[in-house]
């Protein structure tokens, strides 16, 4: 069943077309990767799916609903959450609080002016469980500014997970992460398979080909091919337009 359906999406910045006539469907429970060279419009695509940018044309259907014009926070409530390419956590808050805020958002509005939020046992317990999922439970009381880059990448995903999403938009979760932490990230994402649908934007080809059920290749804002990892490896247009000199990486 299709969870996310993108129909003929288009977005231009002045004369530059960042997204052109882009269609895409992501099956529920799958990991769908979007790859493409720099400037292919991957981050612009995520911004439109998350609701931070409004497309010029086309539609985004999520879970059978047209969300093209919904603001970010409404989409999150429907179960469409994102992580950021550049870690975007609350640096002066503890890891637990970063996640607790997302849990708190899922529980409904926060117009509660009196009781101490940090002593809400139910929220803290749920937040701790999410930190456990990504392997950060022992760092819960550290401030986000104090942990390593790789840990902050994991926190980024924990925050998105804590919103209780049906689907995660992961914008380059491996960006700037060393091989060891990258491995940890791949393992963690693998544990999420089936539990939550993932749209994965990633530069790390190795990770993409290990994780993805399907891959869409974006070049200059256009989807030039979609298929299984094997189909993409074999696709002549992909090899020519995108992979070219990076041939080795693809066969690896």
């Amino acid at each position, binding site marked *: 069943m299709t969870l996310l359906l993108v129909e003929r999406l288009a977005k231009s910045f002045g004369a530059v077309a960042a997204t052109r006539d882009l269609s895409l469907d992501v099956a529920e429970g799958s990991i769908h990767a979007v790859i493409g060279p720099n400037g292919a419009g991957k981050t612009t695509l995520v911004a439109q799916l998350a609701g931070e940018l409004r497309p010029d044309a086309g539609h985004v259907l999520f879970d059978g609903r047209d969300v093209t014009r919904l603001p970010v*926070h409404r989409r999150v409530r429907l179960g469409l959450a994102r992580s950021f390419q550049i870690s*975007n956590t*609350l640096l002066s808050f503890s890891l*637990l*609080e970063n996640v607790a805020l997302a849990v708190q958002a899922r529980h409904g509005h926060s117009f509660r002016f009196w009781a*101490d*939020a*940090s002593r809400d*046992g139910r929220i803290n317990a749920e937040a701790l469980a999410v930190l456990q999922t990504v392997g950060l439970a022992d760092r819960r*009381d550290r401030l986000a500014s104090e942990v390593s880059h790789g840990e902050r990448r994991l926190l980024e995903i924990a925050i998105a997970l804590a919103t209780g999403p049906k689907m995660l938009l992961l914008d380059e979760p491996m960006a700037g992460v060393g091989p060891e932490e990258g491995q940890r990230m791949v393992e963690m994402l693998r544990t999420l398979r089936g539990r939550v649908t993932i749209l994965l934007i990633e530069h790390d080809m190795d990770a993409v080909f290990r994780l993805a059920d399907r891959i869409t290749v974006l070049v200059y804002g256009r989807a030039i091919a979609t298929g299984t990892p094997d189909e993409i490896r074999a696709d002549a247009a992909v090899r020519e337009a995108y992979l070219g000199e990076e041939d080795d990486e693809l066969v690896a």
Partner: protein
Amino acid sequence: MSADTLSAPPRAVRFRGALLPLALFALLAVVPFVAGALGQPFYVSLFTRIMIFAVAALALDLVLGYGGMVSLGHAAYMGVGAYAIGILSFHGVDSGWLQWPLGIGAAALAALVIGALSLRTRGVYFIMITLAFAQMLYYTANALSTYGGDDGMTLWGRSSFSGLVKLSDARTFYWIVFAVLALSYLGLRRVVASKFGRVLRGCKENERRMAAIGYNTALYKLAAFVLSGALAGLSGVLLANHTEFVSPAYMSWVRSGDLIVMVVIGGLGTLHGPIAGAVLVLVLEEVLSKLTQHWWLIFGPLIVLTVWRAKGGVVRLFGGRA
């Protein structure tokens, strides 16, 4: 360690953090007795005024220190609260039961309208638009010729509370203002630690992140703005009662700037900071303005030095936690 105590600071740290606020309130509590012993009733009046401005500075700190919204028009909400008292008094309504809620309500309403429009902008534009709205209210007050125009107007008297308390007694009034300040301080401590406060602090640090986890950030910021406006209105209600006079000068943008100075010098984003800031600024103003009419020549460098040497406000010099 159980889940519900995860983020609570250790008892010792919390106690140390409470020392400075306690010292501040202790200082304010002995003022009437010291003034009595010295035969200087003027000090009671001076510190009443200081505490009234401390309430307004607290209100500003909620939006500035916790919400990251630089409002350069907070004197306007004080002014609206004060004018509500003045206008009702002019028409013979002197009951505090009516005056006070109406003063607070009028300021909250002004903050709702101004906040809803201003919060569509960011950064420097937000500063400009809050200033512009405050100036509009300032000139409106100037144009109210029935109510004294630019000369302002003297009140018939202080609010009456069915003979329950006599605000005209300087000491009684002092303790009422003291109680308002203490309750505002304790109430806001709860608010900033609550779920609402946590969302507000999150918005200050990273609004985009807060939207990305499902918060309608504009709504939370607006709620804080209205709450802050209402509290500033209450301080205006107190000010009108204290001076038994209202004038457009209450809303001048210089006054709004003074409030920012109090919050920043005292300690942005700490609640005892603005109280310390109000004490510091108004005592210095009192002392220095006796020395010379160009007292800003001394006060200015002092501000520079404080901001430079004590980033985060004077209260952090004492090692108190935020």
